[in-house]
Structures are given as structure tokens and as C-alpha cells.
């Protein structure tokens, strides 16, 4: 079956090329001239993208839905047989194309952005390593290969967040990201173990084939799905494990774009979408996902309203959009969730790269209160940023409209309250994004020292490509309302099993669209009035804020709560262990062993005094003992 698909043998090259790039740039780190590392890294990812496209067309031409490429027999112990295999099907192809496509654009952008950094070679090595891990994650044919990629992206996230490691605050942020991921990973590992225990296999095809015997709501399946969900919550920054994502903005902006907008944080979504059959059997977990998704999207949107750092606003926006994707998954619309992943990758990467362009031009300034009026100085950046903002707000015909609209429709079918909350989140999203746009690009210039200029072409060309994708990407999945055939959802039908409700009537759909468009226009107008007409600038740090404002500005004090509840007791416990047990008991015990040996040696040394008569005594005693021994034994 595998051989009938042409070019399928090239499948292993897709993750291998970035790995090769990592090895080359990592090992010959010191000797590469300035731009060579970046060019090598970008070329590798581009090649992976081209091969992914070839695989896409080859799979389509062959008429099959999936193909498994087994690289080697990995674990074969007793009843456990886990090959190292790659699965090429529609879902993994979608993710591969996103990862390599957007990844290649971000690599090219980074050539310009990281041009002046002294450690630029190791930056590209780590980026390539990340791409390799992410590709392993999405291409894995069983949960263990997925997990390898899962851990790999966690590691690369840690490395890249703490890239400028000379600053201790960045190190703390990197550590926080890694440890929160780890908490999720614990649940994930337990889920895999339970999965293996139940199904005797971890390969996707085998597990999903065996689910036929289980009824909906079986406790085992519910437990498995909850454990896997914990992993996804950690990786995709949902409540309660989301505080690492805003702090992760300490890394360079291309890192934020690639890892924390387009790819790594969507790993959780991908994993749940992949396990759609399991989740369909556990309605309790789906309800939990809906609740988590709603809470996350609202809370992050509220916090984002009051942030003054351009990257932090985008970070909270990412958390909020991830909440939307979780909401879609919880509603059973897995392909919609993946579609939102795709469109979000386009416009969020564009937003981050645009923000990077602004930061680069402003010489490192990230506070939006110190920007303004950049529209005239950086027109290209402004237009692409505008496109992305329109996309994220859900204005037709941009891509965000199609994906968000599908989610809102599904929410309306499910429960009217969920719909209202989701719609409120969409409105908040629109508001803070336009606030960001107006404060940065409109109004009078509030800075004194910087000389902003348009970014070099190596940075603006990816911006333009991503803008085109953000504008026209929505047409991948045009619903039947507008005469399309939902190409994307049908494409994914073979890989994920979405819950199909009854088809909504077209009039209801049109009604919902009209409502949301009307409200969105109101919000945009209100934002325009506040930030452009009245030129309201957010207050500086010294001015007092209202109580509500302070709570929101300080992120609902969640970081402080976590610190008090978790970090302080753990710190106390570890201090206790160190002082009382390690220094008092364990360390001296180990030293005692050495001392006891030395003392034994001193004792035994007395045997050799050099005294003749003692030796004679010893000889006689020895012979006596020997004869007695022979007599008795």
C-alpha cells in the first residue's frame, strides 16, 4: 500500500532536513559567516515545505487517505511493539504545510531581524531543531513519536525563550515555560500509559480501530482523555497553565511568532484533533474542554485590554484565540478547530512579525505608549498589520471571519449562553486589537529619540506573503452559504471524526453573521473614537488606576496566587530537605563511610609493627588456626 504512492519515500526527508540544518549550523557554529547560518536554515525548511507539497499532491493523486512510512523498528519488548513510523494523512499534511510554510517565512524574516546579534548561528540551529521536533510531532504515527516531538518542542521553547540568557529575568521566564509544560507532560505521559494499558498499543490506527468495543462515557476512556487534555492544557496555554505564555515574550520576536503563535501552542489542538475518536466517546471531557476554552478566551481577552507592551497584547491575544480553538474542539467540531489553527497561524505570525518590524525600527522599544503615528514612516508594515488585525477581528472576507464564524455557528447550535460568551470574546478581541493598531500607527508621534524606518526587504517580503494568506486563506473553507463546498472540512473528514449536528438553516446563519458584523462595526467605531479622535493614551505607570483596572492590569494577580500557593511551599519543602536531611543526615553519612574505612585501615596497620616476636606469635597462631580448621572441617 505504501509503494503505490509515488514520492512517499521522500517522507522521511521532511523532518530530516531541518535536523540536518540543526547539525550543520550547530556544529560549525563558530565558523559560519554572518548570513550563512540563516540561509542554510531557511533553505532546509523551504525544502521540507516543497517536499510536503509534493507529498500532498502525490497523496491526492493516489486516491488514498493515508500512508504510513515505517522508518525502523524502535521498541519491541514482549507484547509492546512500537515502530518509529510516520503517518501521512490529511491532518498531518495540513500541519506539515503550516509548520514548514510559515516556518520558512519566519526563518527568512529572522535573517534580517537577528542580523546584529552575536549568537545568530546558534539561534538558527535552535530554530531548525524546533522545526524538526514539531514535524516529528505532527507526522508521528503513534503517541510515542508524537511525545518525542512534544518534548523536543518544549526543550526548544526553553532554549529559545532564554536565548538572551544574560538577563536573569529571561531565564526565569524560560524556566517557567518549561516547568509548566512539564506539569502538562506528566498528565500526558499518564494518559499514554493508560492508553497502552487499555488498548495494548499506542499506534493511532490500532487504537482507533479498537474503540469500537467501548461505549460512550466509559470511565477508562474519560480518564484517558482527561489525562491527555492535561498535556494539551500545558502545551497550549489554557487555564490554569497559561501564565507562561505572556512571560515567554522575553524571547526574540521571530521565536514568539513561530513557537508561541503558529506552531508549538497548537500542538495540543492537533493532538486532541488526532484523538477525535477517543474524545467523541467521552462527553464529560468535551464539556470540560468547552468550559476551559470559554474561560480562557474571556479571561485572556480581558487582560489584553489593559496591556501596554505590544508583544504582551499579542500574547494574550494568542491565549484567547487558543481558547477559541479549544471551544471548537469541545463542541465536537474538530476540523473547524484545525481550520482556525491554520488561519490563526497566518494572521498571528503576521502580527508578531509586524510587531517585530516595529520594535526593530524603534530600536527595541516595546511600550505602545511611546509609539504612535508610525503609519507614515512604515507603510508596508502598517498595511500588513492592518490586514492581520482585520483578519483576527473576523471581518469578512478575511480568513479569520470564516474560521471564527464557523465556531460561533457551532456554539449557537450547542447552547445560546456559550454563543453569547464567545461573541463577547470576539468583540473584546476586536476592541483590543484595534486599540493596539490605533495606538501604534495612528495619532501623533509620542517618541523623541527613535528614527523609525521601513524594514529591509528580507523582513517585509514574508510580511507580504503572510498578508496575502491572511486575506485569502479563508477561501479554503467556504461554507455552502456562500456557494463554497467546505473544502477544508471535507479534506479533514478522513482523518478526524467531527460531530455533525443538523445542518443549520441558511437564514439562521445569515442572521448570526449580520448580528456579529453589526456589533463588530460598533466596536471598531468606538475604538476609533477613543484612540484616534479623542487621542486617549493609556496612563503611564505612575498614575493610579481604579481597583478593577488594577486587577485587570496585573493579570488578575494569577502569577502572585501561583507563587503563594505553589512556589512558596515547594521552596520551603526543598529548603527543609536540603538543610535538615541533606546536610545533616545524608552528607555526613557518606563522609562517614570514608572515615570508617580510614579508621579500619589505621586499625589494620597495627598488624605490621615490624616487631619480630609479634610476627613469631602470629605465625604460631596461624598454624594453630589452620590445624584446628582442618581438624574440625
Amino acid at each position, binding site marked *: 500500500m505504501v509503494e503505490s504512492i509515488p514520492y512517499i519515500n521522500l517522507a522521511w526527508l521532511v523532518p530530516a532536513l531541518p535536523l540536518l540544518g540543526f547539525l550543520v549550523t550547530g556544529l560549525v557554529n563558530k565558523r559560519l559567516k554572518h548570513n550563512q547560518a540563516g540561509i542554510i536554515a531557511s533553505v532546509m525548511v523551504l525544502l521540507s515545505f516543497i517536499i510536503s507539497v509534493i507529498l500532498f499532491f502525490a497523496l491526492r493523486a493516489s486516491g488514498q487517505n493515508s500512508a504510513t512510512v515505517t522508518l525502523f523498528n524502535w521498541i519491541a519488548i514482549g507484547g509492546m511493539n512500537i515502530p518509529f513510523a510516520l503517518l501521512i494523512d490529511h491532518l498531518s499534511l495540513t500541519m506539515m504545510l503550516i509548520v514548514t510554510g510559515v516556518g520558512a517565512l519566519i526563518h527568512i524574516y529572522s535573517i534580517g531581524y537577528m542580523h546584529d546579534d552575536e549568537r545568530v548561528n546558534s539561534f538558527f540551529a535552535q530554530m531548525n531543531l524546533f522545526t524538526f521536533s514539531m514535524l516529528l510531532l505532527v507526522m508521528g504515527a503513534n503517541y510515542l513519536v508524537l511525545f518525542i516531538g512534544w518534548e523536543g518542542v518544549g526543550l526548544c521553547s526553553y532554549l529559545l525563550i532564554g536565548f538572551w540568557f544574560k538577563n536573569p529575568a529571561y531565564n526565569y521566564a524560560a524556566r517557567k515555560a518549561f516547568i509548566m509544560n512539564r506539569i502538562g507532560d506528566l498528565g500526558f505521559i499518564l494518559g499514554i500509559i493508560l492508553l497502552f494499558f487499555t488498548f495494548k498499543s499506542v499506534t493511532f490506527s490500532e487504537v482507533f480501530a479498537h474503540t469500537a468495543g467501548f461505549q460512550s462515557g466509559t470511565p477508562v476512556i474519560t480518564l484517558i482523555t482527561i489525562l491527555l487534555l492535561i498535556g494539551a492544557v500545558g502545551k497550549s496555554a489554557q487555564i490554569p497553565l497559561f501564565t507562561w505564555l505572556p512571560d515567554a515574550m522575553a524571547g526574540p520576536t521571530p521565536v514568539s511568532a513561530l513557537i508561541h503563535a503558529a506552531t508549538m501552542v497548537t500542538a495540543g489542538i492537533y493532538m486532541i484533533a488526532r484523538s477525535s475518536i477517543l474524545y467523541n466517546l467521552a462527553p464529560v471531557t468535551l464539556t470540560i474542554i468547552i468550559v476551559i476554552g470559554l474561560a480562557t478566551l474571556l479571561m485572556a481577552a480581558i487582560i489584553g485590554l489593559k496591556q501596554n507592551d505590544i508583544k504582551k497584547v499579542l500574547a494574550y491575544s494568542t491565549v484567547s484565540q487558543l481558547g477559541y480553538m479549544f471551544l471548537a474542539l469541545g463542541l465536537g467540531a474538530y476540523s473547524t478547530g484545525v481550520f482556525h489553527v491554520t488561519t490563526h497561524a497566518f494572521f498571528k505570525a503576521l502580527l508578531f512579525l509586524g510587531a517585530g518590524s516595529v520594535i526593530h525600527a524603534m530600536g527595541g522599544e516595546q511600550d505602545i505608549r511611546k509609539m504612535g503615528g508610525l503609519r507614515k514612516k512604515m507603510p508596508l508594515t502598517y498595511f500588513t498589520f492592518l490586514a492581520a488585525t482585520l483578519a483576527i477581528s473576523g471581518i469578512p472576507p478575511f480568513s479569520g471571519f470564516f474560521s471564527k464564524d464557523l465556531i460561533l455557528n457551532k456554539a449557537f447550535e450547542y447552547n445560546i449562553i456559550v454563543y453569547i460568551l464567545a461573541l463577547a470574546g470576539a468583540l473584546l478581541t476586536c476592541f483590543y486589537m484595534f486599540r493596539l493598531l490605533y495606538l501604534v500607527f495612528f495619532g501623533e508621534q509620542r517618541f523623541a529619540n527613535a528614527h523609525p524606518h521601513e524594514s529591509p526587504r528580507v523582513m517585509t517580503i514574508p510580511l507580504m506573503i503572510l498578508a496575502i494568506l491572511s486575506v485569502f486563506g479563508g477561501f479554503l473553507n467556504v461554507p455552502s452559504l456562500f456557494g463554497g463546498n467546505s473544502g477544508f472540512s471535507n479534506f479533514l473528514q478522513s482523518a478526524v471524526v467531527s460531530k455533525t449536528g443538523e445542518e443549520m438553516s441558511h437564514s439562521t446563519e445569515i442572521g448570526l453573521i449580520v448580528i456579529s458584523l453589526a456589533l463588530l462595526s460598533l466596536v471598531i467605531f468606538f475604538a476609533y473614537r477613543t484612540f484616534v479622535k479623542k487621542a486617549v493614551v493609556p496612563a503611564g505607570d505612575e498614575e493610579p488606576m481604579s481597583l478593577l483596572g488594577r486587577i485587570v492590569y496585573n493579570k488578575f494577580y494569577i502569577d502572585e496566587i501561583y507563587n503563594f500557593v505553589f512556589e512558596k511551599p515547594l521552596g520551603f519543602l526543598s529548603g527543609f530537605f536540603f538543610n535538615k536531611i541533606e546536610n545533616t543526615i545524608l552528607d555526613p553519612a557518606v563522609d562517614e563511610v570514608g572515615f570508617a574505612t580510614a579508621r579500619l585501615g589505621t586499625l589494620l*596497620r597495627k598488624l605490621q609493627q*615490624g*616487631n*619480630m*616476636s609479634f*610476627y*613469631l*606469635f602470629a605465625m*604460631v597462631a596461624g598454624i594453630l588456626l589452620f590445624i584446628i580448621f582442618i581438624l574440625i572441617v
Partner: protein
Amino acid sequence: MKEISSAIQLIPLEYYIILSVTLFSIGVMGILFRRNIIAILMCLELMFNSVNLLLTAFSAYHSDPSGQVFVFFIMIVAAAEVAVGLSIVVMMKRNVESVDINLLNRLKW
């Protein structure tokens, strides 16, 4: 010598064994007891002789001349050993000015 030959058969073997063991243990006791090197060498000779006696007794008992030939060789070795041992005593007297064995205590680390 025929009278003597019949006399041999009267004395049982165990008497000679006990006698030899007695002499040997007296020699061991003497080695541990005395501090003079010459005395220790003499007790060593005592031990040699007890062994000689035992060997000869066994040889007479089993009517095997190999025992007595072996005693002959032991005497040779004892003689050579006494010669060398006494020259060591002379050397010791020359170096340490005394023949007390407790003064020879440098055989350690």
C-alpha cells in the same frame, strides 16, 4: 644386633608420636619465650630434632629406609641453615650492638 631388633617391636608407635609432639611444642614455646636470638635458634634446632625423631620412628615402624634418608637430608639443611643464621647474628651484633630481637623492628612500612 638381633636382640635389639626384637626390642623395637615392644615400643608402640604412639609413644614416639607423643614424645615428638612434646618436644616440638616445647620448641615452639621456647621460640615465643626467649628474647635472645641465639636461644631462639637453639629452640629451632630442638624442633628440627623432634621431626627427625618422628621420621626415624616411622621409618623403623614401616621398615622403609626412605624415612632415614630424609632425616639425613634434614640434617644437611639444618647444618647449612645454622651456618647462615649464625652469620646473620654476627652481622646483627655488628650493626645493632645487641642480640635482642625486639630491636629488629624496622620490617614495616
